[in-house]
């Protein structure tokens, strides 16, 4: 995976498969402490302790379509290469919370990459899911909540061609202004 946003998409797809109806994603880039923290919290079916123990085993997967599960081992390796780590907590029936950390300036840290495309890929999922996204860089923060958009749209789905174009454009504008503002404040 070339970008952290690819890994994030992978985790979000896991949450969708776990039946989550809402997924919270928080990315925090602390410029002073030089850390990058990504937290993903879903309200899916969760996992019991026996399953959590095995999620880092590449030859374990819950799916029936194939017999390997590489997503989480890959992400944990990416974090550990950058002085960070991955922590996962889960409760059956409640959901799963994943936290992954990176030394922000580490030479091996992949760029965050195209978060708007990652979020849109999940919103276009065949199973409807809402995303609460926040991205903080230094003191600047950008929030996006798809349930607010759904409310505004009433009976028009998020997947409507005009709407998905609007979502992508809005996310791109806000992500771009966030990176400009944070660059100026450094």
């Amino acid at each position, binding site marked *: 995976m070339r970008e952290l946003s*690819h890994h994030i*998409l992978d985790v979000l797809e896991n949450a969708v498969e776990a039946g989550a109806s809402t997924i919270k994603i928080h990315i925090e880039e602390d410029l002073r402490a030089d850390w990058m923290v990504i937290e993903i919290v879903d309200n899916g079916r969760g996992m019991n302790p026996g399953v959590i123990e095995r999620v880092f085993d590449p030859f374990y997967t819950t799916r029936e379509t*194939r017999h390997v*599960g590489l997503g989480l081992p890959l992400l944990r390796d990416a974090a550990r290469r950058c002085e960070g780590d991955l922590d996962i907590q889960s409760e059956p029936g409640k959901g799963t919370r994943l936290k992954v950390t990176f030394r922000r300036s580490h030479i091996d840290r992949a760029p965050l990459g195209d978060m708007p*495309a990652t979020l849109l890929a999940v919103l276009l999922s065949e199973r409807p899911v809402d995303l609460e996204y926040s991205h903080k860089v230094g003191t600047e923060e950008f929030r996006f909540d798809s349930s607010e958009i759904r409310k505004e749209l009433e*009976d*028009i789905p998020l997947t409507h061609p005009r*709407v998905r174009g609007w979502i992508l454009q*809005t996310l791109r504008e806000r992500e771009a202004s966030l990176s400009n503002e944070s660059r100026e404040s450094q």
Partner: protein
Amino acid sequence: MVRLKNIEELKKIRQEAQKDLLVRTQTGTRIIVGMGTCGIAAGAREVMHAILKELETRKIEAHVETVGCVGMCAKEPLVDIEQAGKSRVRYANILPENVPKLIEEHLVKGNVVHEWAIGRVDARKIQ
């Protein structure tokens, strides 16, 4: 939160969309992109993005959906195209640069692109 200008745009989109929604859901085209770990690593998100861009450029209104892994990981990125009244065709190893030709041939001209097609799909089973 989302800026006011964008919310105003969204309201306008909703009003316009309400008029044609019924027609499209009944006669529509669905394009389905596999978005499992295997698909993502092979570039499925970029393929989805290329599809959205191509549809917008050509003013083709089709539903685009993402799904999890279907078990054909070596064939990712997988793109299925389903049109009302026709069987669903599965295309394998699609790259963003293949997308304009795929849309042109399959959606505009109505031809299956045999060099990339791997089968017709009935639900989740290859016939």
